[in-house]
């Protein structure tokens, strides 16, 4: 009997059918992965984007022909090849860039074998990690919408994967994931603000040096030119007092003493206590938020009265440099007081004099010759300084960011051949001439200028404001700032650096167009600075400051944990409360609504309807219990049963019933 429908079967249950991943869901995941790769395109290997695009396109094509997935051997070969490619690109598998590239490679390989839901989850997890890598790589404000969009895309893909074989349409998926992300946001903010941060790293991570632009701790003629190309912010200063005048906006960074003919360097050792100073002119009190990358120098408006008020941050060196106590690999902020005029009351100690008079032997003979000539003609140091400045002013020197290359005798080449250079060149030449003429001199690097941001209320100094000038020792006055570039390009002193560059190069880089553009740019800059200060650079100190500003006296981990516990509980209970509300929503059906009103009203006079009681039986029971209501209740119950279970139910019937119920309910309540 072949066709017996039921034959005895073993107790073995059939295996659960694997949940296939529909094409629409696959596309969500692939889109999420591709966008994650695009967000990383700035720092992963060049081949990553083509690889990911190719793998995704191939995957979409292969989805139509299921048997096309490659075999194990082919996959292992691809793993080896791609790992080698990462190794060749970065010479390591460690670090952010190599790691992100490796992640892209692994996701591409995973796409070759993704069939089940689990495999797609892995691809999605990889995409999330790529988003993390993008966050680690770049934190500019303008990227945030992209990061948020990518997060939304990935959570939508998660929802699509979770919905199994019949996912809802894309719009509803997008809505669900957006709702969940928004609900999660309060907790994320709470954790962000109050989750205890660490004072340092758990383990050291390789820092990519070239990523940071900033003052170099040495100066060769090219180094400042490189900086001037960068629009990155260098520091922001908020003034308690009035803003310094434009010609006083010299931001002192590093003091360079030793010169080998091409490069100026900092002093190798400390030459004792700083010299006593006497200040004149207006006092400026201000706070500086300094971006990282200054090689341990704390930039200050020339000339600071002393080290920052928080002495743990840094100290003042013998040459009035402010040196940070800790490496400045993240933004720091400190308060200072400066005055534009100052006077040294002490004599210059001999070791420092010797340091600031030293010149490399056998270099720049023509310049030294020139110095001797000018020195012989001048009757004192003041006159000599003026003579050298006059020489620079009157001999056709040109300010340009693209000067001709200088040889081994760089000062000779500049003064007698090329006649082209920018601040670094002229500071270097001027200091050399001074030293050759017997006047102690050193080069100071820092920034000149600053742009007032009205919205943020701060002065923004960019890397492009980088500048170099000199200080010479004049007896009776002490260290005096001399900026030889100001003689060659006088505009530079009065205008922004940009204008000087624009004048020199014949092109401006930033738009100085309509006022609304300038206003927009300022708003954007203010937002950017807020973002950098408050979010990106939020760390343990800021966290403890925040606790203090919340009025908590104990600024410790216990307070943080307390806030976290309270806030987390609140958030969870809000979620739970919301969960109670939503599934039991108001019934849509007006008939049910009307009946509910009736039942609720009748609860006052009788026990509620039992689950097994139909409307008529319920009406009869209550009519029996309270005969006063019977006359109205009986027909109402019948009418409900008729409307609910009868053949027709017109809108006018419904309205009549509703009205009758409301009247009846009002009567009971009275």
């Amino acid at each position, binding site marked *: 009997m072949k066709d*017996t429908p*039921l034959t005895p079967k073993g107790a073995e249950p059939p295996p659960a059918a694997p949940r296939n991943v529909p094409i629409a869901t696959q596309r969500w995941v692939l889109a999420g992965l591709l966008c994650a790769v695009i967000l990383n395109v700035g720092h992963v290997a060049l081949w990553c984007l083509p690889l990911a695009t190719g793998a995704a396109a191939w995957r979409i094509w292969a989805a139509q022909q299921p048997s096309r997935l490659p075999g194990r051997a082919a996959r292992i070969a691809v793993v080896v090849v791609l790992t080698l490619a990462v190794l060749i690109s970065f010479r390591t598998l460690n670090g952010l860039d190599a790691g992100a590239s490796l992640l892209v490679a692994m996701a591409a390989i995973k796409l070759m074998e993704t069939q089940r839901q689990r495999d797609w989850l892995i691809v999605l997890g990889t995409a999330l990690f790529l988003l*993390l890598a993008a*966050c680690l790589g770049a934190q500019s404000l303008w990227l945030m919408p992209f990061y948020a969009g990518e997060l939304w895309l990935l959570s939508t893909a998660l*929802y699509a994967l979770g919905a*199994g074989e019949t996912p809802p349409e894309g719009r509803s998926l997008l809505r669900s994931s957006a709702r969940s992300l928004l609900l999660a946001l*309060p907790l994320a903010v709470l954790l962000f603000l109050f989750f205890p941060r660490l004072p340092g790293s758990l383990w050291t991570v390789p820092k990519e040096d070239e990523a940071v632009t900033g003052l170099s701790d040495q100066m060769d003629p090219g180094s400042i030119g490189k900086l001037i190309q960068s629009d990155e912010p260098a520091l922001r200063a908020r003034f308690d007092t009035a803003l310094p005048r434009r010609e006083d906006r010299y931001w002192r960074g590093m003091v360079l003493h030793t010169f080998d003919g091409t490069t100026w360097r900092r002093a190798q050792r400390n030459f004792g206590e700083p010299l006593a100073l006497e200040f004149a002119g207006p006092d400026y009190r201000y706070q500086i938020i300094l971006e990282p990358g200054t090689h341990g120098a704390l930039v200050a408006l020339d000339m600071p009265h002393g080290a920052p008020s928080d002495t743990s941050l840094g100290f003042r060196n013998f040459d009035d440099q402010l040196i940070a106590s800790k490496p400045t690999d993240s933004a720091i902020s400190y308060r200072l007081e400066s005055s534009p005029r100052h006077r040294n009351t002490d004599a210059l100690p001999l070791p420092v004099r010797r340091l600031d008079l030293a010149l490399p032997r056998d270099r720049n003979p023509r310049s030294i010759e020139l110095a001797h000539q000018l020195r012989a003609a001048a009757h004192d140091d003041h006159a000599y300084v003026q003579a050298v400045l006059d020489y620079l002013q009157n001999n056709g020197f040109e300010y340009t960011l693209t000067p001709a290359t200088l040889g081994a005798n760089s000062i000779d080449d500049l003064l007698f051949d090329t006649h082209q250079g920018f601040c670094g060149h002229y500071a270097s030449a001027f200091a050399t001439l001074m030293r050759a003429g017997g006047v102690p001199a050193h080069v100071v690097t820092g920034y000149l200028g600053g742009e007032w941001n009205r919205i943020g209320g701060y002065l923004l100094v960019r890397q492009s404001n980088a500048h170099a000038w000199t200080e010479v020792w004049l007896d009776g006055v002490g260290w005096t700032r001399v900026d030889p570039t100001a003689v060659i390009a006088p505009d530079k002193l009065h205008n922004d650096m940009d204008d000087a560059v624009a004048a020199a190069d014949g092109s401006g880089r930033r738009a100085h167009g309509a006022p609304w553009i300038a206003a927009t740019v300022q708003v954007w800059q203010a937002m950017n600075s807020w973002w950098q200060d408050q979010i990106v650079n939020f760390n343990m100190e800021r966290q403890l400051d925040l606790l203090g500003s919340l009025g908590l006296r104990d600024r410790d981990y216990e307070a943080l944990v307390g806030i976290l516990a309270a806030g987390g509980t609140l958030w969870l209970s809000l979620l739970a409360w919301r969960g*109670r509300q939503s599934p039991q*929503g108001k019934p849509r059906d007006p008939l049910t609504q009307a009946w509910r009103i009736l039942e609720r009203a009748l609860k006052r006079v009788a026990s509620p309807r039992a689950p097994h009681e139909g409307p008529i039986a319920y009406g009869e029971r209550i009519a029996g219990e309270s005969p006063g209501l019977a006359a109205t209740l009986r027909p109402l119950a019948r009418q409900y049963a008729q409307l609910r279970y009868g053949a027709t139910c017109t809108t006018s019937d419904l309205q009549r019933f509703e009205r009758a119920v409301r009247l009846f309910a009002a009567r009971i309540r009275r």
Partner: protein
Amino acid sequence: MSLSAPSRSRFKPRARLERAVSAWARSRQGEDHAPLTLQSRRIYILPTRAGLVAFLLLFVMFLAGLNYQNSLALLLCFQLVGFALVTMYECHGSLNGLTISSAQVESAFAHGHGELQVGFYNAGSTTRRSLRVRATEVAPKFFEVAPHSACLVSVRYQALSRGRQRIDRLQISSDAPLGLFRAWTWLHMPLEALIYPAPIRQRPLPPAVGLTQHSERERRLSGEEEWAWLRPYRDSDPLRRVAWKAYARGAPLMVAHYDAPAGAQRVLGLDTLHDLPLERALSQIADWVLECERRGESYALDLKQGSVAAGHGLAQRRHCLEALALYEPA
């Protein structure tokens, strides 16, 4: 007879733990009767394996953010933690408030699979997705309930041996929306299935009484089955007796009705099966019942404890199989 899981999983710690927990749930929930609406008191939730892996990944992300002292990475990580917790509530919410409107179990043959039908009603305004209902160790079934609507889900259960089988517990679970968490509830309803003996053919059909040998043979030999008249199709009619040719010509669905001679019937009983063990004998009778039904013949059951008069059709089949299922030797 109470349901016990097949022996191969008796020593698995996970199955044991689940049984222990469900016994505890049984003792605190008591017996359930449909209709009932799930409340959070009886919904349990745990992360799935995917959920555990996801939390491990989040922890790695967190460490990376902490170590690089990167606020943005930490913010991303915290946002994802919140997201996962929100989906935990959604998972819970996909069961919370779901109404089980009915549950009934159909009989099945021993060692086969039976059907269990559970009715659901979703009073909420969102679709409840990725729901599963599972009776015994048979593969669960996925389903979803649209907002403000009801659905009836059939799920297979593993039938054990002949007799009464209690479906002690039903598990309704959901891993919506992401599969990171799984919420479930246990229902303990008075569901009892009659398990018929498994039909096993060992002997030919006993001869019909009251039907001449000749006509029986003639009918066999003629090759094509003869029928006396057609009557309209009824739900219980076997499909093989539908007059398809007439249907193809445009007639309504009709069923061939054999004009069996009055009193021609087979009496199925244990008399001729004394040499078989009882269960084998009952299995043989069950097979005969099915065979008679297939042929559309009239048959009677003659057991010592309970007999069923001659007849055929679904009701007759059910009466006979039930008698077989409940048969106990004196």
